């Protein structure tokens, strides 16, 4: 296991996002008011920094660049989004926010790699 302390609970205001560096791995912490979540820092659409482009409201995260949206608790897609958000396992111990980083999570920005025999299309 590699649980790492990211920040203290009051480092991230309610309904906001803040990016941290955890031993070289960038992690975006979201404070939902009653809980925290941890995601990779870039929008799965066009790699914008969600710390700047992300808007948290009513449990939804919206990227202001092209309005992709996700359920903050689960990372599930809403509206225009075409890829779910990835989540790191997270726990809170007293005032500390910890995430479990086995390896850095990254989105596949390229498409259709698996279905293709020749890596392009069939």
């Amino acid at each position: 296991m590699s649980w790492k302390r990211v920040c203290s609970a009051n480092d991230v205001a309610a309904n906001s996002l803040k990016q941290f560096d955890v031993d070289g791995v960038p992690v975006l912490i979201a404070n939902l008011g009653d809980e925290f979540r941890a995601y990779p820092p870039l929008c799965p659409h066009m790699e914008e920094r969600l710390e700047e482009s992300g808007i948290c409201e009513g449990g939804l995260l919206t990227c202001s660049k092209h309005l992709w949206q996700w359920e903050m608790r689960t990372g599930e897609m809403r509206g225009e989004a075409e890829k779910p958000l990835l989540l790191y396992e997270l726990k809170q111990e007293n005032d500390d926010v910890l995430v479990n980083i086995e390896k850095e999570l990254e989105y596949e920005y390229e498409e259709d790699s698996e279905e293709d025999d020749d890596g392009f299309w069939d």
Partner: protein
Amino acid sequence: MKVSGRSKAGKFTFECRTGERILYAGLRMGLALPYECATGTCGTCKARVREPATIKDLWPEAPGNSYLQRERGEFLMCQAHAIADCEIAVPAKMNSMPEDYIPLVSTQGTIVNSRLLTHDVMAFDIELADPIDFDAGQFVVLQVPDVEGGRAYSMVNYERATRRLEFIVKKKPDGRFSEWLFSSKADGTVAELCGPLGRAIFQPEEAKNLLCIAGGSGIAGMMSILSRGCQEDYFKDHGGTLFFGVRTLNDAFFLDELADFVSAFPDKLQVTIALSDEEVASIETPHNGSLNFATGFVHIVAAERMNRHYDDVVAYVAGPPPMVDGAIRTLILDARLPADLIRYDKFS
């Protein structure tokens, strides 16, 4: 040239004419290819080509290229010609086009009647040989012989089957098209144009109250939307609220036209001019009966004035990208609008 492609929605093929951009060819055929700016800046139209030698990159320095992984054959469909039959893959979802979609055409027109509206905003018209249709809120890409590359400009007027398109351009320091236009050589120039483009369109059948937030030249498409609403008596039954942000009163324009809209539908239309760099109390404001004035950034003024009364609203936002992002923030945090009721154009 034949373009064969596929996206998550399935396979498609279309014909791309010699000298035609792949994006425009696909849109002309009614394919819902992804795009926003259509002019090389936003990166939204990226796709992958199997054989890079089958396409020609028209603008290798395009800012939108920063979103590409070149080694994987990624390119911008709005900045590429097909020079042979080619195979492409589009990463976006590609929803189908709406039934009443107006197909894109490539045509020519003559620039006429260029005129200054303020010290740094110029209006001009284009007279077309053949009439075209467009929806209120749409834009075209213009290209003139003296300036390399196309530029996106939103139509100000609204008319079906029109032979006249009206535009405004804000002068950008060292901007090549705007400097050219301001040098007063424009009238009589024949421009190539492609359009209509843009999905931030007024859809009267939605029967919602309109909330429009414009920064600077972003007012262009809003004028078209308000014109259509007035022409078709939309504002008899539906509200319309416009916030128009400029620096100072000297930078504001279309005030007479906006006041006319308001006097036609005084109960339903509201227009507020937001001055970011000038105290309203310190100046004398025109059209006081029909136009409101406020001090502050336009998206902040909008939030204050709406005061959480966003009843059955669809929102339109246009202007410089930071202003659009700020307005989107207001619309999500303050108006709590779902994303599909926010229509935007970033004038990047």
